[in-house]
């Protein structure tokens, strides 16, 4: 009952925040767009996705699937370092902490200084049983010895970040840390129906291809050369409605020059590059198109499992496994459920297991 009431209150707060007459959200969107952090279309898409994900009894469903206990993190301080290339990055982590009743301390992404703070400010007025604090710069964080740390970054950055936090006495060697390193997703496409192609385009090109749920590798039974023309039409259609906000670095053109020299099949789209070549995805604005079947997909999933966030497909393959990963619907790539598990870990479950009372 305690959990139900808490979640009901939280659900109502989120629902209220997403209402069109919420002037604070409107102002945050305007500031975000006017100051060039994200395009209006990308912000709109993210808000639409989160509004849908948190609507109705979705939070309740998440409490059930995660086994949320009443005030399981009451009095515990959780530090979330948010970084990334999407609007409202960190929303799910902040919500997880609020749902468990823990005290939320956030370092807001420098690239998204208005949207998440607007939500946090709104929530802090309604969720009275836990503290909600945030800063834009780590140096402004006035807290010592938090009970847990959540952040996303590369393997390489993990040790550097934790050592900075240790120096500041914010964490100790034994502080539970949820460090997420997945940074790309893969799709297996077996048809070129308009719906599939539009979903694929959205999943690849939304947010300029950034974000761990965005597709960096497509496996399809046809080579890039066979699909290049028709795929380009869908991309142009997408870009007409969603002009790409962020532009690639000059290194992308160097990569195009390299592919040309090495006779690698490719499609140069000025702000994006599609290449028929497999390597571990690490750079932005690149889609790798690999001709192959389900076995090819399985090989790629096995080879790159360390950095892989999700595997998507259509119809017959949804729910099947590619190695240990369950194949998700392609259409959900940029619209995940609120209970989706970044790096295959449910944040609420993790918090309760590692920090819970």
């Amino acid at each position, binding site marked *: 009952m305690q959990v139900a009431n808490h979640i009901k209150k939280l659900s109502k707060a989120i629902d209220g925040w997403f209402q069109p007459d919420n002037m604070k959200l409107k102002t945050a969107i305007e500031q975000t767009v006017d100051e060039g952090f994200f395009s209006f279309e990308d912000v709109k898409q993210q808000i639409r996705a989160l509004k849908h994900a948190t609507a109705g009894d979705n939070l309740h469903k998440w409490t059930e699937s995660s086994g949320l206990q009443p005030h399981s993190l009451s009095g515990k301080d959780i530090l979330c*370092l948010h*970084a*990334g*290339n999407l609007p409202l*990055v960190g929303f799910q982590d902040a919500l997880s902490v609020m749902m468990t009743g823990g005290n939320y301390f956030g*370092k807001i*992404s*420098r*690239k998204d200084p208005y949207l998440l703070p607007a939500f946090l400010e709104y929530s802090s007025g309604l969720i009275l049983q836990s503290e909600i604090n945030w800063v834009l710069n*780590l140096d402004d964080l006035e807290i010592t010895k938090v009970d847990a740390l959540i*952040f*996303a*970054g*590369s*393997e*390489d*950055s993990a040790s*550097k*970040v934790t050592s900075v936090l240790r120096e500041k006495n914010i964490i100790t060697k034994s502080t539970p840390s949820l460090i*997420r*390193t*997945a*940074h*790309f997703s893969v799709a297996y496409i077996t048809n070129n129906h308009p719906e599939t192609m539009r979903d694929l385009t959205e999943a690849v090109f939304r947010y300029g291809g*950034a*974000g*761990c749920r965005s597709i*960096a590798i497509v496996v399809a039974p046809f080579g890039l050369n066979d699909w290049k023309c028709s795929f380009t039409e869908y991309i142009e259609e997408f870009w007409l409605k969603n002009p790409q906000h962020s532009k690639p*670095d*000059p*290194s992308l*053109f*160097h*990569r*195009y*020059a*390299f592919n*040309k*020299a*090495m006779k*690698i099949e490719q499609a140069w789209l000025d702000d994006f590059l599609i290449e028929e070549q497999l*390597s571990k*995805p*690490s*750079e*932005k604005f690149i889609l790798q198109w690999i001709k192959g079947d389900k076995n090819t997909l399985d090989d790629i999933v096995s*080879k790159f499992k360390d*950095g892989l966030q999700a595997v998507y497909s259509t119809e017959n393959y949804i729910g099947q496994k590619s190695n240990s990963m369950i194949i998700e619907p392609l259409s959900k790539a940029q619209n995940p459920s609120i209970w989706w598990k970044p790096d295959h870990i449910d944040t609420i479950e993790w918090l309760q297991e590692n920090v819970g009372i």
Partner: protein
Amino acid sequence: MAETDLKEYIFNSGISFADRLKEVYIYQIANNPFYRDFSNVLGLNMDSDIDPESVPLLPIRAFQLGKIITENSDADLMFKSSGTTGMLQSMHYVADKSLYENAISEAFYSHFPKDKYALLCYMPGYLDNPHSSLIWMAAYLIKNDDCGLSTMYHDTENIDEWISNVLDKGKIPLLFGAAFGLLDLIDENKINISNQFEIIETGGMKTHRREMSKTELRKQLSDGFDVAPSNIHSEYGMCELLSQMYAIGDEWFTTPHWVQITIRDPRNPGRICKPGEEGKIGIIDLANLYSCPFILTDDKGVSDENGRFQVLGRWNSDNLRGCNFLIDRD
């Protein structure tokens, strides 16, 4: 310029590097189809003003994907990088081994004169690779030691006897080995070299143990072998390069006169990083005349005001695509 002249021209320190580079660039554009296409797309060709800073650097993975050798050249030698399972290996086809021999001798003996040093090579991991350029180099240096003392560690039956022989001849024993192998030697306590030796470490810092910084590696070698840090040197070389760079007694590498290093901005490889700014190590090695002398490595480095450079490990591009707190702080 005739090819035979060009080979000598490369190693002629009386000619400015820029002039030598120009001739090599013209030769490459005329004879290397991979590099010609790469350079043309980036807008540089034989009609352009060619200088060391404007010459495009071909990403090093070209050696994994294609046979990088100039037209009408046959390979004297083929070197293959060591690689872990599932990793593509680089292949370097060497059309003229005399270029490699020359590059090795000129650079190595300028730091470690033949008449002063005897070499003990310990390269266990590389011995399994019959195409290792490092093993070839070690064998070449051993063969060219006039007094015949230089040797491979595994060919030495009695190491203490070898050491006293070298010392009796008034030479300095020089242990040359891959970093991880040297650390194993310390652990196994197989050799007691104390302050009589100097050491050259080479190879990546990502060992079967873990990745470590050069500073940490040097400290472990110094403590483990009881050798002063000033007598611990580093070599920077790779299968794709015919030339090697050395850091003598510290972490700063210098280049031989036919090589130029710049640190490149990974987001814009055409931009040269300022001293102190980390980036990818870009190399112009004129000895690579018949493969590709203009290479952008995936190694992370930093330069100083004097043109020296440090190797800081591998450049990790995962930071660029994903959510990364460190990037976010920049």
